[in-house]
């Protein structure tokens, strides 16, 4: 059965075509499952998308953010190079005389062979490192409920690649020897590993060598085809899912949740409670998961023992969607699943596949999405399921009901009388737009700094700074409304849209053009979400704005403070809006401040625990409160001050310090407060 000769080549072709047909049928089914999802436009900015493939697929940009990723980079490229080699091998299986050098030329082929040998050798090393990591080091992030299945899957894949490389080298070594004896035969010496390995076969007769060659060739071919068939059923489905998923990654900011159409009266259900209510892209996400666990490794909920692990959410959804999708597509599958009491038919997306505590545990901090190498979008899935729970079932943690009511009647989560919204500014030099008419900047204060005693101090520091630098600004006072950000993240899109429309009307009524906020949540919402409803203004977070004023010399931080300061990045400022430098530059401008950074800082910053409406929910699950975990991370650095840029972070840290009885020794101060102290405003 010499490869490339009759009948071997015919048999090969039959096997090859059969394996490919099977593979394509499986893919087709997966495609049909994805198409069960609702439409979503992900075809905009095509050029950006194509560039993304270069960076994130071929460059593995996000993968190599972590040390283990370098191993993946090698294996990935090794795999591509091996595939190029395999094409030659298959060619030779159809016609024995087929060889790259005959049309690529000897030089180019030599280079290719050298590269192949180098990469294959490197991949072997990388694979052993991978095995060592998974089976000896066992990092937490690789853990799954069914660890045996996960390990078996990984073992099979790593094993197959190893075997493949061994077989490839074997075939090459023998080919080298055969080429020596063949008139007109050629084998590039550049393939130095193969050449060296040929020593193992030295001295065998040509016939024996042919035997070895057949063995290596067939084994190699079957392993590859086996791999092809196995991929879609394993976590290596990501080989197929990741590329389109990276291509179709979101082009909108992560802080922009989808706008629901609440006008359409034909709509009968809102949010997501079945797989078909996800969009096709949300389903495609599931195929792309590499089970790398980076999302969970950065998830504040998971790390503090909440019943939420983004990697498991994706894994559970993937398993469910495949089975449920098959059911929806084939009556036979449907019958099988229905007759089985443990079958997928009986499983509810919310309740069985994802549990409510899981859905409500998410702080929407964005750490999962930031670190997912294949751009899976977790947050939108949780929010969409919340939307179903809130809008359809009125089901949410009990404490939320009061908060929703408070927003409805008084437009603030505390439920304090709406008429007292402007009271914080009573004794300050600040005009309302009603008094001032048009001003250059509107200072949109937000609920926290309007109603919460602690937050009010941030607002007054801000007002003093703005006055000091002569900025022409005003506030809305009693007319201000909650921006609705939190209601939206809790899933109450109806309430959010009502609030947004109302606020936009008020702001546009005053011809507002530029807005400053002291709250990253309001900042993100006004900047990234309000355009959906016709609110288009220039939005500044106070860190950006104050940094600008300092740079222009309008504010001079001259009073030094001899303090150790740790800065905590707010998720909605950092990850959501890429503002990392401005608050730091402000802090550095204050003489005497010694700024230190936590391990989890900037885009890895750990959430304070308040986002996604968690501020308003009890935190009873898990083994530690998120704010206390974060406070501990800061305390390791021995700070005198924790610097923050968000009123919610302020509260969370202050509570965290109280829990540790450290509230007397460590202060939590907003950048505006710190700057006001350093500037020494006239009004003090």
């Amino acid at each position: 059965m010499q490869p490339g000769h009759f009948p071997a080549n015919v048999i090969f072709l039959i096997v090859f075509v059969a394996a490919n047909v099977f593979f394509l049928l499986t893919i087709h089914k997966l495609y049909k499952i994805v198409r069960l999802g609702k439409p979503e436009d992900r075809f905009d900015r095509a050029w950006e998308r194509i560039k993304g493939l270069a960076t994130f697929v071929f460059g593995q940009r996000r993968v190599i953010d972590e040390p283990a990723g370098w191993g993946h980079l090698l294996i990935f490229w090794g795999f591509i190079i091996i595939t190029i080699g395999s094409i030659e091998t298959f060619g030779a299986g159809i016609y024995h005389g087929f060889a790259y050098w005959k049309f690529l030329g000897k030089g180019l082929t030599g280079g290719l062979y050298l590269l192949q040998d180098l990469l294959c050798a490197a991949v072997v090393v990388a694979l052993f490192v991978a095995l060592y990591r998974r089976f000896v080091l066992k990092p937490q992030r690789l853990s799954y409920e069914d660890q045996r299945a996960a390990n078996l899957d990984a073992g099979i894949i790593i094993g197959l690649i190893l075997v493949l490389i061994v077989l490839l080298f074997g075939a090459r070594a023998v080919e080298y020897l055969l080429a020596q004896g063949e008139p007109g035969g050629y084998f590039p010496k550049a393939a130095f590993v193969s050449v060296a390995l040929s020593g193992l076969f030295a001295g065998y007769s040509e016939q024996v060598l042919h035997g070895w060659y057949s063995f290596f060739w067939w084994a190699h071919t079957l392993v590859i085809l086996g791999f092809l068939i196995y991929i879609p059923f394993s976590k290596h489905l990501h080989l197929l899912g990741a590329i389109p998923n990276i291509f179709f990654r979101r082009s909108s900011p992560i802080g922009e949740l989808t706008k629901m159409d609440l006008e359409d009266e034909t709509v009968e259900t809102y949010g997501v409670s079945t797989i078909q209510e996800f969009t096709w892209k949300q389903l495609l996400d599931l195929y792309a998961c590499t089970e790398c666990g980076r999302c969970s490794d950065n998830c504040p909920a998971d790390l503090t023992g909440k019943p939420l692990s983004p990697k498991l959410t994706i894994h559970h959804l993937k398993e469910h969607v495949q089975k449920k999708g098959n059911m929806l597509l084939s009556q036979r599958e449907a019958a099988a699943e229905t007759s089985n009491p443990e079958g997928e038919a009986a499983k509810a997306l919310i309740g069985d596949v994802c549990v409510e505590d899981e859905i409500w545990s998410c702080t929407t901090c964005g750490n999962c999405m930031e670190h997912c190498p294949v751009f899976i979008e977790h947050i939108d899935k949780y929010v969409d399921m919340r939307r179903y729970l809130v809008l359809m079932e009125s089901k949410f943690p009990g404490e939320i009901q009061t908060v929703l009511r408070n927003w409805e009647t008084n437009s603030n989560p505390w439920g304090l009388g709406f008429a007292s919204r402007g009271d914080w500014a009573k004794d300050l030099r600040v005009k309302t737009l009603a008094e001032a008419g048009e001003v250059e900047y509107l200072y949109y204060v937000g609920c926290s700094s309007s109603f919460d005693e602690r937050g009010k101090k941030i607002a007054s520091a801000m007002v003093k700074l703005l006055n000091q630098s002569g900025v022409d600004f005003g506030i809305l006072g009693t007319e201000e409304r909650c921006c609705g950000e939190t209601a939206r993240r809790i899933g109450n899109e109806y309430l959010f849209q009502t609030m947004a429309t109302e606020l936009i009307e008020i702001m546009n009524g005053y011809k507002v053009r530029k807005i400053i906020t002291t709250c990253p949540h309001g900042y993100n919402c006004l900047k990234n979400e309000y355009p959906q409803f016709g609110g288009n203004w220039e939005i500044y977070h106070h860190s950006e704005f104050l940094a600008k004023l300092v740079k222009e010399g309008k504010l001079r931080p001259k009073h030094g403070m001899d303090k150790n300061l740790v800065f905590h990045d707010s998720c909605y400022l950092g990850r959501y809006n890429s503002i990392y430098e401005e608050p730091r530059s402000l802090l550095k401008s204050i003489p005497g401040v010694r700024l230190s950074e936590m391990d989890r800082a900037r885009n890895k910053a750990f959430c304070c625990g308040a986002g996604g409406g968690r501020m308003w929910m009890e935190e009873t699950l898990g083994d530690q409160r998120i704010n206390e975990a974060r406070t501990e991370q800061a305390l390791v650095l021995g700070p005198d001050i924790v610097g923050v840029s968000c009123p919610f972070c302020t509260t969370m840290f202050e509570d965290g310090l109280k829990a540790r009885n450290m509230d007397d020794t460590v202060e939590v101060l907003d950048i505006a407060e710190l700057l006001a102290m350093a500037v020494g405003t006239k009004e003090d």
Partner: protein
Amino acid sequence: MDVIVLLKQVPDTETKIKIDADGKSIDTSDIKWIVNPYDEYAVEAALRLQESDGAMVTILSMGPERAVEAIRTALAMGADKGVLVDDPATEGSDALGKAKVLAAALRSMDFDLVFCGHRAVDDDENQVGIMVAELTGIPHLGMAVSIEVADGKARIERPLEGAKVTLEATMPALVTFGGAHAVWNPRYASLPGIMKAKKKPLEQKTLADLGVSPDEVGAQAAKMQVTSMGLPKERQAGRVLEGDTDEKAKELTRLLHEEAKVI
């Protein structure tokens, strides 16, 4: 089974109340209006009967046009239809006047049970429900924290100091509801509920429709008059006394004696 819930729209409990220039009423210009919380418990109780016994739930309210909003809130929670008695002649009615109007409205409707909060959190009079029962000639079960219906009878529980009493009455009957938010956990309207509520029937009636003469109601018929209204003193910020324990104690006694005049 038909259940009618009497519902009142009241100022939000967090509203900063301002006394009107007349010194006898409140300035309603800057007020957020909500459904009287006790009436909301009544709505919740009625909706539970709707679920368990297929009861038809009608909301009956009296008040100006803005009260429509309160009725829609109840419709969004799941009530079937609403009736609003909106007549300027009713303005200034005392409890009896209001009860007369509501009783007249009930006369034109079918019902097995009439539900309402035991009091409204605005004027806190605890009267209208009981008066409506009297004027309609049906039994009244007061301050319910639970309700069951069986064999033509309504049975409620009411907590007493450290105990509980169970009361029963033959229907038709009027039940006033007590308890607290945590007892009833009134449901939060779903979005389809809100959408449907916009299309549910809501009838508006005048005194003439009910056959009530304007002389029987309104301010001039009121047997009880509000003579004045006042706000409590504004709460002052806390004060921290300085000095050693002795001095602090002395200062505290002085303040309690001279300023607060409590000792």
